């Protein structure tokens, strides 16, 4: 997994509440066999019309937001199905951090497994960041994971909380599998004991 340290990038405002995983990536795109390539269909139904043409008004279609790396979104981002295709699509588009007042549980966890940092901040902070994001490509927002801060282009800073273990994994680019494999001797000895206690398994 890529390391997440300090990110300085364009932030896009998406003030809708309850953006669900179906809006992030509709079910017809679940038939892929890859994690990559979903970025073009991120927010598909908001982003394109029925003929597949870009809808000009949608934020990520605007010239100043094409290189967005940070999303500032409304409450309860990522609710709905457990599909990991949602964080894959965000990541493939280039989004590395999402800021909101709240996230759906499974989506929140799936983000960390894919090197995306979901940041929970109080309403007033999100409001300020939303305004800053509206400035477009002239403004660069800074997300510093080590320091646990988000800073606007004007230098206003907000601190956020993050689970220490998840922070450690993101900072070092460690994936769960790598970490669990460090415990491989415990797995080996468990298997040995279990195969005696329950040989039919």
């Amino acid at each position, binding site marked *: 997994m890529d390391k997440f340290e300090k990110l300085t990038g364009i932030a896009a405002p998406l003030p809708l509440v309850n953006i669900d995983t179906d809006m992030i990536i509709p079910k017809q795109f679940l*038939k892929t066999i890859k994690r990559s390539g979903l970025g073009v269909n991120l927010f598909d139904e908001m982003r394109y019309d029925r003929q597949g043409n870009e809808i000009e008004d949608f934020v990520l279609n605007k010239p100043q937001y094409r290189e967005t790396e940070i999303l500032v979104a409304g409450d309860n981002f990522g609710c709905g199905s457990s599909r990991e295709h949602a964080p*894959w699509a965000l990541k493939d588009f280039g989004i590395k951090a999402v800021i909101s007042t709240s996230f759906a549980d499974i989506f929140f966890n799936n983000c960390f497994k894919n090197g995306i940092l979901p940041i929970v901040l109080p309403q007033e902070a999100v409001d300020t960041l939303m305004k800053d994001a509206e400035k477009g490509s002239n403004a660069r927002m800074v997300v510093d994971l080590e320091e646990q801060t988000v800073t606007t282009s004007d230098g206003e800073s907000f601190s956020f909380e993050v689970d220490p273990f998840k922070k450690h994994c993101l900072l070092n680019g460690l994936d769960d599998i790598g970490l*669990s494999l460090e415990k491989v001797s*415990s797995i080996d000895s468990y298997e040995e004991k279990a195969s005696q206690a329950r040989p039919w398994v």
Partner: protein
Amino acid sequence: MSPKTLYDKIWDAHVVHEDTDGTCLLYIDRHLVHEVTSPQAFEGLRMAGRKVRAPEKTIAVPDHNVPTTAGRENPDNMTEDSRIQVAALDKNAKEFGIHYYPVTDVRQGIVHIVGPEQGWTLPGMTVVCGDSHTATHGAFGALAHGIGTSEVEHVLATQTLIQKKSKNMKVEITGKLLPGVTAKDIVLRIIAETGTAGGTGYVIEYCGEAIRDLSMEGRMTICNMAIEGGARAGLIAPDETTFEYVKGRPHAPKGAQWEAALNWWKTLYSDDDAHFDKVLTIEGESIEPTVTWGTSPEDALPISALVPAPEDFKGGKVDAVRRSLDYMGLTPGQKLSDIEVDTVFIGSCTNGRIEDLRAAAAVLKGKKVKDGMRAMVVPGSGLVRAQAEEEGLADIFKEAGFEWRLAGCSMCLAMNPDQLAENERCASTSNRNFEGRQGYKGRTHLVSPAMAAAAAITGKLTDVREMM
């Protein structure tokens, strides 16, 4: 020793490692795999140069988007994306050396039906699959979780899952069921009472006389929908019914190992004074044949009831009900038994087993489906299909006017061509009535197999007891 619940006992037997914050590495005895949530996991393994740690405990079967019509073994008869996913599973199964049941194998079927049928699922095991309805296997007293794709990869590579322990909840169904009432009605009633989030953070153990009286098929129907009540898993303690079902299955233990297994399995129950964090008790006699009217499984009522009004609810549910009545095209005060349907779907991992087909056929025998009705039976596995043919059930269905399909998920989630068209209304034996679940703007009413058969005959939601 302090008293333990069934969940505690299975959990304790599978902890490989525990961190100070309670995060555990849990050993996984069986990993079931299907074509939709696994390709990226295998790709991940390949990219990292990793192997499947325990291929002999890993079982794959394509089910979600395979066609259920004749000629499907020819890839030309699949849509392009399905063909690619099924081909990827073929390739991954071969390359990583895991057990595999391709569409050409009579044992192919819905992953949650194949596992128990082949004896892969046994009491006291931990079972996972990249699918939320993995809860089904809890009917055997196995701890069964649905997982995401990154976790599928984690289990493939390590045969473990990172987990924190859930809380214990007990749902007791006392006494006997009334005639015409089935496992599906029990579980719909439970979800109507707890709500879809009532089980969040819990593993539910179902118990009581009415649960004990159920066959394994019925118990699987109950545990299948534990997830619809928000629970991570559902459990039923194994007993003679369980052992009887398991005995002689291809992958069940034999001889001395059978005796050893049986000895352990008989210890798998909640101790008398074990602590449950939450308890719900329902009288079996109070359960009626039940149907859903809305777009959430908690929107369930007895068939004798009326469509509710948004004002009957509180808080955020008021708006949600308004929206779902609009989506479903229903009016408050309308009798549920007056709702006309144009499609009937019998199948899925909830109700695609032999007993379900028997129950539906018993109602259909000698009758015809209503003119203009589209009715289909999709058996849960090739073996269920073969058995139903042998028992003469297939003929009853066909003579009544049902389509007799090949095994798969089919119209349960409409990833293959079996879909509802806009505004079509279906009495379905599946488990989710979400917007768009069975097709764009399709309308779903969840029912038991017997109730589905009754609806096929009359063309509307019908109290099956009037036909018995």
